[in-house]
């Protein structure tokens, strides 16, 4: 009994240390989004080329909503060519990529779009409301919205060709 008590005090610290080690190592961006499986929040923004970008008008299409910024190096720079390739490959099958630039300067964002030759619609979220509506922590974050307007997946970090293809194929195969 005495021996047990002597060991009990240091032993009781172990679960607390494990809990702390786990808590401090978890990246909050990896916490599953409560928005997956829920309807995507509608938004209407004005693109850099002056056209309205509205989620509502894209109902019936698979929409890839990508949050980015020109200062987000290297992840946004890595994924930009993959997004453009994905958009070109799947646009004829009913997929749209919408880029939303957040916490950025207009000139820097326009330079980014020019540099990568992005042809999909890109708009700036000046008030930050759209990014908060999508529970965005940082950039880049990408949401895959199905034909019925439901958020089906969230990808944190740079989107690769494989990630894009996997989600695009799954969602395009579904009926509207």
């Amino acid at each position: 009994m005495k021996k047990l008590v002597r060991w009990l005090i240091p032993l009781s610290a172990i679960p607390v240390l494990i809990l702390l080690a786990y808590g401090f190592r978890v990246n909050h961006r990896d916490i599953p989004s409560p928005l997956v499986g829920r309807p995507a929040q509608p938004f209407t923004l004005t693109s850099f080329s002056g056209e309205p970008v509205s989620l509502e008008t894209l109902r019936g299409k698979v929409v890839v909503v990508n949050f980015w910024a020109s200062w987000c190096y290297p992840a946004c720079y890595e994924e930009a060519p993959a997004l453009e390739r994905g958009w070109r490959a799947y646009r004829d099958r009913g997929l749209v990529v919408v880029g939303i630039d957040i916490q950025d300067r207009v000139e820097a964002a326009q330079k980014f779009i020019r540099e990568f030759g992005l042809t999909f619609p890109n708009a700036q979220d000046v008030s930050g409301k759209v990014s908060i509506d999508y529970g965005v922590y940082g950039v880049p974050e990408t949401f895959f919205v199905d034909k019925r307007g439901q958020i089906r997946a969230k990808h944190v970090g740079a989107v690769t060709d494989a990630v894009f293809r996997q989600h695009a194929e799954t969602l395009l195969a579904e009926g509207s």
Partner: protein
Amino acid sequence: MSSARTLLRVLVLVLATAAPVAGQQPATPAAIDEKEVYEIASQLRCVVCQNLSVADSPSEMAQQMRELVRERLRTGANREQVIQYFVDRYGEWILLAPKRSGFTLLVWIFPFVAVAIGLLVVAVVVRGWKRTAAATPAARPVLDTEMRERIRRAVEAEDA
């Protein structure tokens, strides 16, 4: 003449209706209680910071979130509804203090349970010490009458 009178009437009417409207206008922004905005923002975690609330962070994201709190309050939402608005989008992680219900209730209860267990352990240990202390004097050698007599004689011999 009559047209001038009509014009005057219209002018009076316009002034009479415009005055209260003009008086009310500055009241709308003042209706937002900045203390309320601060208190709501201080319960929300700044998503781009390390351990800072939305109220304390100078980041652009936190500024936008504070503006959204104001906008929500302006639409007539109460404190709980504004906080729920952020929880719906970011999950309960956005709350600096976990909810006192469900699984996160454990976070609130656990420290008290830990203190209670600690006190119990201390009580058991102290009782153990007491028992040892009580047992020790009993083991001390007792002077028997023969020994006492020898000492007395030795002291007397010394005195003499």
